[in-house]
Every structure is written in structure tokens, then in C-alpha cells.
């Protein structure tokens, strides 16, 4: 598995092997071996739970440095709604837009503009596609989770690009025309709230290529902006609508689509529970499922600075003064331009986890061994062995990646038994 396809990584020097991250990982993608954590690339969905949890900040995300923009003659910034929730006492969004320009960007293009178009197109798709429920494609972690663990639900995902991609293409095209410059001289940079949006830029599932040239963490942009003076004048004009802005928090997408029959679920564990229900055909009446990996939605991303509840409250207040405008499908098509749409180029592919064995019968034998071993383990799921659960350690042992005595309880038993045997031998020496 290409490590470039994942954004979360471990800073080994900071990790002290404490197992905090092990317990919160929703896909059991972390092991602690030889005193430090490691991430199983084939299982990680870049949800960022470990980044939030690690007390030593040893879990990090690969993102692009702000300085990457120097590689391009012209630069455009793509801030999403959650970015605006980072700032206190905003008299207007334009102040933030100006602050972004002062960092050296030539233009700012709000991702809400992509979201507005998507809401309109998704409403149309909901009309024409009878499958239920349709599932939001907005959170790349959820999409990847479905690719890995719920491949049968891939046809339920609305086959559209995420809002930042829709925005990025328009941003580049409009800038190139307006300034009469070559599109390839323009660098389009996403301000990302999370590792998974960065991963999407690199892997662009279902898309021939990404329209984005780099992903800079919101934390980094926020730090750069907070050390600068409050801008006096403002050049850029905000195009944000109330509905587009809503996408920054859970439920905003469904509201923007004007739905009333939807589930909006935040937090990756709860998302998994609902996907299980959908897989069991228990929600076939439901129109739309909006699942977001982070608590609160993107305001709760692992690479944002502000407390998600505070950011959400700010968004809500900002939205009060914004135009309540929804695009219709026709308007969306006009903005997209002749021959362009928001649809994916290719269907999303399953990304199955490595099997126990390619041969079913061998896999069954291994499963039996795993179950037998798991019965000998204490069932406490304490994580001390470096695997997240006893069942998982059993599997790791059978796969040859750990040993039974990594379990401290088994080790204790083993030692006391050895001691007893030794004692037996020394007390009852065999008679000659």
C-alpha cells in the first residue's frame, strides 16, 4: 500500500507507546509494538481520531506547507465554512478573505460556492436515482470507510465530487479567463480541516485527477494569520449563502438540499452503526444519509484550531445575515458551464482489507485457531499487548505478527506455571 495514499503518520520520537490511540481507532488500524505505535495503512481511513487523542501529539497529518504556494505564479485559496468559524469578533467574512490575500494569495474562492452547486445537483440526483438511502459523498473518511468495510453500499453513495473539488475547478477557470493567464500557472490550495480531505486531493477516488494542487492545514493558516495585523481595507467580496455555509457543520448538507427525510450523523462510531443498519436493509425508506467522521461535522476536524462548539456557534451567527438562496439545477448547470458537471468520472472502487487467506478453507481454519486462542485470553481488551482487543491479538498471533505471551495475563500465567514446575522438580528429585 502506497503510504502517500494516507495522511496520518506517526512521529516516532514523540510516541511513548501509551496505547491511547489504540483504543479510539474505529477501524483497529493501530498496533503498539516495540514501544511505539504503528499504523496499518490498509486499514486507516484518515479520520484523525488518533491525532485528537494522542497526549504527546505524536500522531500527525501530512499536509502541504503554506510556502508551497511559492511554486506557482498565481495562487488561489479555498477556505471552507469551518475556516470562518475559527475567528472571534468578525465584523464580516470579508476581513478573513482579506487576511488570506495578505498571506500572498491572488484570489480567494469560497468552497460554499461548490456546495451551493452540489446541493442543487444532488437534489436532482435524488429525484432520478431510486436507490435508498442515498449516502453523502462529502466526508472522504466516510467514503473510504464504505470502500473498505461496506463495499455493497458503494452504489448508494451519490456519485459526486466533494465541494472543494467543484469549487477548485471553477476557481481556476474563472481566474484564468479573468486575468488571461495559463491555468497551469495557477496553484489552487485547499485549507483543510482534516487529513482525509488532504488524502482525497492525493488519491481523488473516482476522479481522473484532482483540481487542487495542495492542501494546507487550517491550523497552519490560522497560525500565520493570527500573527498579522487586522486588515484595514477589504478587497474581496464574499459569495457565501446561508445554505452553503451550513455545510461546515453536521446536517448542513441535508438542510441545503431542502430535505426533511434524512439522517445526519456525526462521529465515526455512530456513522458505522448507521451503515450497519443500512447494510441490513433496515433503512430502505430513508431518503438521505449524511454521515460525517468528526463530532459536529467539519468544524470538529482534527486540523482546526477552535473548539468545534464555539466554531459552530460562530457559523450560526454569521449565517443569520446571509442570503437564504438555493440554486436550482438549471442555475447550477449555467455556473458549471457547458460540458462540465459535478459527477465522478468513474465508479468508486471497493478497497477490501487483506483477507485472512485467499483460500476460504484456509481462512476458515485460521478463524478457528483465532477463536480458540481468543478464548484463552482474558477478554479485557486492555490494549497492553499492543493490539486493540483480545480478539485482535488472537488474529495478530495467527497472522504471525504477535505472540501469545504479548498478553501480560498469559505471560503471568506462563511464569507462575514455569515456577511451579521448577519447584516440583526441585522438591521431588527423581530417585536414582
Amino acid at each position, binding site marked *: 500500500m502506497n503510504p502517500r495514499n494516507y495522511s496520518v503518520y506517526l512521529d516516532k520520537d514523540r510516541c511513548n507507546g501509551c496505547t491511547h490511540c489504540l483504543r479510539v481507532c474505529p477501524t483497529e488500524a493501530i498496533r503498539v509494538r516495540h514501544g511505539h505505535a504503528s499504523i496499518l495503512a490498509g486499514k486507516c481511513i484518515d479520520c484523525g481520531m488518533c491525532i485528537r487523542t494522542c497526549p504527546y501529539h505524536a500522531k500527525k497529518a501530512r499536509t502541504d506547507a503554506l510556502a508551497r504556494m511559492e511554486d506557482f505564479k498565481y495562487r488561489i485559496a479555498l477556505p471552507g465554512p469551518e475556516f470562518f468559524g475559527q475567528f472571534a469578533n468578525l465584523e464580516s467574512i470579508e476581513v478573513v478573505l482579506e487576511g488570506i490575500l495578505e498571506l500572498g494569495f491572488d484570489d480567494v474562492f469560497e468552497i460554499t460556492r461548490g456546495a451551493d452547486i452540489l446541493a442543487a445537483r444532488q437534489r436532482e440526483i435524488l429525484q432520478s436515482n431510486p436507490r435508498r438511502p442515498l449516502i453523502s459523498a462529502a466526508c472522504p473518511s466516510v467514503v473510504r470507510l464504505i470502500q473498505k*468495510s461496506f463495499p455493497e453500499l458503494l452504489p448508494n453513495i451519490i456519485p459526486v465530487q466533494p465541494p472543494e473539488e467543484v469549487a477548485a475547478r471553477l476557481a481556476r477557470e474563472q481566474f484564468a479567463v479573468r486575468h488571461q493567464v495559463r491555468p497551469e500557472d495557477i496553484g489552487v490550495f485547499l485549507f483543510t480541516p482534516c487529513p482525509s480531505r488532504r488524502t482525497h486531493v492525493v488519491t481523488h477516488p473516482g476522479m481522473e485527477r484532482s483540481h487542487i494542487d495542495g492542501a494546507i492545514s487550517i491550523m497552519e493558516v490560522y497560525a500565520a494569520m493570527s500573527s498579522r495585523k487586522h486588515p484595514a481595507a477589504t478587497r474581496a467580496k464574499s459569495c457565501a449563502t446561508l445554505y452553503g455555509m451550513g455545510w461546515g457543520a453536521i446536517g448542513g448538507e441535508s438542510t441545503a438540499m431542502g430535505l426533511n427525510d434524512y439522517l445526519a450523523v456525526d462521529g465515526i462510531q455512530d456513522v458505522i452503526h448507521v451503515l*450497519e443498519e443500512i447494510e441490513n436493509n*433496515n433503512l430502505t425508506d430513508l431518503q438521505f444519509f449524511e454521515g460525517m467522521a468528526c463530532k459536529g461535522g467539519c468544524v470538529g476536524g482534527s486540523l482546526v484550531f477552535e473548539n468545534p462548539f464555539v466554531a459552530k456557534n460562530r457559523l450560526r451567527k454569521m449565517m443569520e445575515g446571509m442570503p437564504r438562496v438555493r440554486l436550482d439545477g438549471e442555475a447550477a448547470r449555467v455556473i458549471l458551464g457547458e460540458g462540465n458537471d459535478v459527477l465522478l468520472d468513474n465508479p468508486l472502487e471497493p478497497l477490501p482489507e487483506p483477507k485472512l*487467506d485467499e483460500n*476460504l*478453507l484456509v481462512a476458515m*481454519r485460521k*478463524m*478457528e485457531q483465532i477463536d480458540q486462542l481468543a478464548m484463552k485470553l482474558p477478554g479485557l481488551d486492555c490494549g497492553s499487548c499492543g493490539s486493540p482487543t483480545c480478539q485482535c491479538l488472537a488474529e495478530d498471533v495467527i497472522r504471525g505478527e504477535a505472540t501469545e505471551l504479548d498478553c501480560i495475563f498469559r505471560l503471568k500465567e506462563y511464569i507462575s506455571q514455569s515456577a511451579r514446575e521448577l519447584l516440583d522438580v526441585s522438591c521431588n528429585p527423581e530417585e536414582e
Partner: protein
Amino acid sequence: MDEVVLRKSYDVEAGDFESAGDASAGIKATLKRLGVPTGIVRRVAIAAYESEINLIIHSMGGSLTLTVDGESVCLVSDDRGPGIASIEKALQAGWSTAPDSVRSLGFGAGMGLPNMKKNADEFQIDSTVNVGTHIVMRFHLS
């Protein structure tokens, strides 16, 4: 080579809504882990969930058993009564004896047995009133 058969059995108690879904979740997880084709896993999962809920709602308790061999996946639902008086009616889509208390939980559409039958490649049901119901569902692996 000796025959390889994997078997997992789950007890399901009458009225135990708290554990509802545990057995079928375990069955689904096992099949996914084994690498059984995902389309089959989903059909088994749907049938297993419906069986489990029926055991909780309609039966006096029983068990759900998963068996996998090289050729097929098999689900068996077995219970200790009360049995079904008319299997023919029970298999009709929309036919249900679920009381209102259960309907208010979203069950009782009378679609469980029809869905089990639809999703399994082979479906066999035997029931004796006051004795119990025995359902065998087989899913071919190839």
C-alpha cells in the same frame, strides 16, 4: 484433506431487545473476516437480522447458527415454540401477528420471512405448534 466446517451458534432470548442485532452482527463480521464475497455477506446479514428479530419478538427463545463449508453458508434458526399455525400465511408479504407494542418499535410489517426467503438460495421452514420453528437458509458460494 479432512472436511473443514466453521460453526458459530448464538443463543437468542425471547423479548431481549437489548441484545437485538448482536447475533447477526457477529455473523456478518465473521463472514467479512473470512473474505466471503460481499454480495453474499449482505444477503446473509439481512436474513440473519430478520431471523434474530423474529426469535426475539415471536418465539419463546432459541438460537441462530451459522455454518460455513467450502460450498455454502448456512443459517439455521431454531426455537422452543410457540410454532406457526399457518406457514403459508406467515410467508405472505405483509402478514403479521406482531402486537401494537412491537409495531411501534418499527417491526411487524410482515416482511421478515419473505425477505429471508428472497435472499437465501435455498429456504426451508418447518414448524409445529407448541413445539417450535426450524428454518434452514442456504447461500451458495459459487
